[in-house]
């Protein structure tokens, strides 16, 4: 189930017990999104064993399709850095992202731009994934787009998929059924609620 997380990010590689407890909190955030009619993606940004940012998808309430969990949490990391008068890039370089679903292409680019070195995620995001599923923004050669980052994937992936399935069952009965693709997984990792017509 594990991807590689060696090399530069190796020193950051968290022990299993930490991964479990941080991911549990990310799942709490995803559940909160689900209860609020948002795509159930939750995340945590951890620096020196401290949670600097917590985010969940809030696209519908902000009417801004870029308000993915990662973007929300990054805002809090930046705000924390500002309050502590620390260079946000130096903070980000030592911050690990724990997220229930593979970051989309947009979020992967944002994480690069801020030099986040390591991402631990649950399930794949076949529709929008930016860490290998659709494009590999995490490791492609993009000299003007920040720094590449490492990924560790697969933690509680089934559960993350189940939550996405539940969301699409509840919220969008009229949406076209997601296409089943090669690979067998039936639920797509979705960070974008664009098929939703209304949040009410």
């Amino acid at each position, binding site marked *: 189930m594990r991807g590689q997380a060696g090399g530069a990010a190796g020193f950051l590689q968290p022990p299993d017990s930490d991964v479990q407890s941080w991911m549990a909190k990310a799942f709490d955030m995803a559940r909160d999104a689900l209860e609020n009619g948002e795509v159930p993606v939750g995340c945590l940004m951890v620096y020196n064993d401290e949670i600097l940012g917590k985010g969940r998808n809030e696209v519908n309430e902000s009417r801004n399709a870029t*308000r993915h969990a990662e973007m929300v949490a990054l805002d809090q990391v930046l705000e924390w850095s500002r309050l502590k008068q620390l260079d*946000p890039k130096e903070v980000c370089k030592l911050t690990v992202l724990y997220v229930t679903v593979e970051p989309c*292409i*947009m979020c992967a680019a944002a994480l690069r731009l801020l030099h986040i070195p390591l991402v631990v995620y649950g399930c794949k995001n076949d529709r929008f994934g930016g860490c290998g599923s659709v494009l590999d923004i995490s490791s492609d050669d*993009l*000299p003007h787009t920040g720094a590449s980052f490492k990924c560790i994937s697969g933690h509680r992936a089934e559960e993350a998929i189940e939550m996405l399935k539940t969301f699409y069952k509840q919220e969008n009965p009229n949406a076209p059924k997601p296409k089943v693709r090669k690979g067998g997984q039936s639920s797509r990792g979705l960070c974008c609620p*664009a098929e939703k017509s209304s949040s009410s």
Partner: protein
Amino acid sequence: MEPDTKRRKGTEYDTDLWDVLPVLSDEQSRDTKLLDAYAAPITEKRETSRLVKELAVVYPLPDLQHIKRVRARKDKNAPHPLEVIVCLASDVSGLESQRSTLADLLSSKTIDSRGLGEPFLVQIPASPPLTRPQFERASKHWPTSFHEDKQVTSALRGQLFSSSEKAKMGEYMNAAIQAARSGHALGMDAVGAVIVDPQSGQIVAVGHDCRQGTHPLHHAVMVCIDLVAYTQGGGAYEYEKYPACRYSVPESQVTTSHDDLSKEGNHCSSDKAMENGQLYICTGYELYVTREPCVMCAMALVHSRISRVFYGAASTDGALGTKYKIHCQKDLNHHFDVYKGVMLQACEELLDLK
């Protein structure tokens, strides 16, 4: 490039100074791949239709519907006026190429080869041409059929837009350039963007890069997307420090001017519009941006359902043509048209501002 005689010294609005060119998918812009095939002259013309029919049975060429099986030699001195594709070289890959005879190619097949001459190798286009330049290149090798997309053809010739449409584009891009300059005056990178409702011609949002200010991810496009969210009763950030970053609620959605609207009222009209299936993030809107968006901004535009994007200058890691073509990326659930080159020179000059 336009001929020098057509180039005039002019203002930034001079639409003769720039071309609007489509950023096509790889499938549309790549060179046509070629396959090796065996062709043979038809030595008895009256056997042609029988030969074509029988060859189609033994070598059906299933993925090459665009290939015309028979070609006429234009050279009047050619001994035989017609040639026919017998099979692909890969159909008979066990044979030693160059030397294969008709008997080799048809040995295991039940076909009457009367009227066919000795085979020779040709190269034929592997996929159907999608654009006129591809068609012209493909036809040099072997005749193909071509279902022309007239819009793409005229776009490639720089003829898709009338001069009045180009003048309008110039106006929108000029608003983006002005925003870029306002941002630059505040210490930001000189990048500007506007979002337009093409139905009414109205500018819905104007933004510039705000990275050096409060937030390193506030690229001009991200700012514009959030300002559009404001017109729908949402929004996530404050832009008070940046007076050039502004929005106006589209006239088509409200009857009163937006100054008279409380956020509450605004919200209600948005909800109603959303129920009617209108006014949903950037659906139906167009973006004008001075330089090609990065990966983050390009994907944000996919998520926002933008309908068309026009940019001026290309950028090194650009994601709408240079490094990626996210607007026509397979597997993504929303695609849109992208054009580049709008007010190219003025946009390139912004890149040099430090």
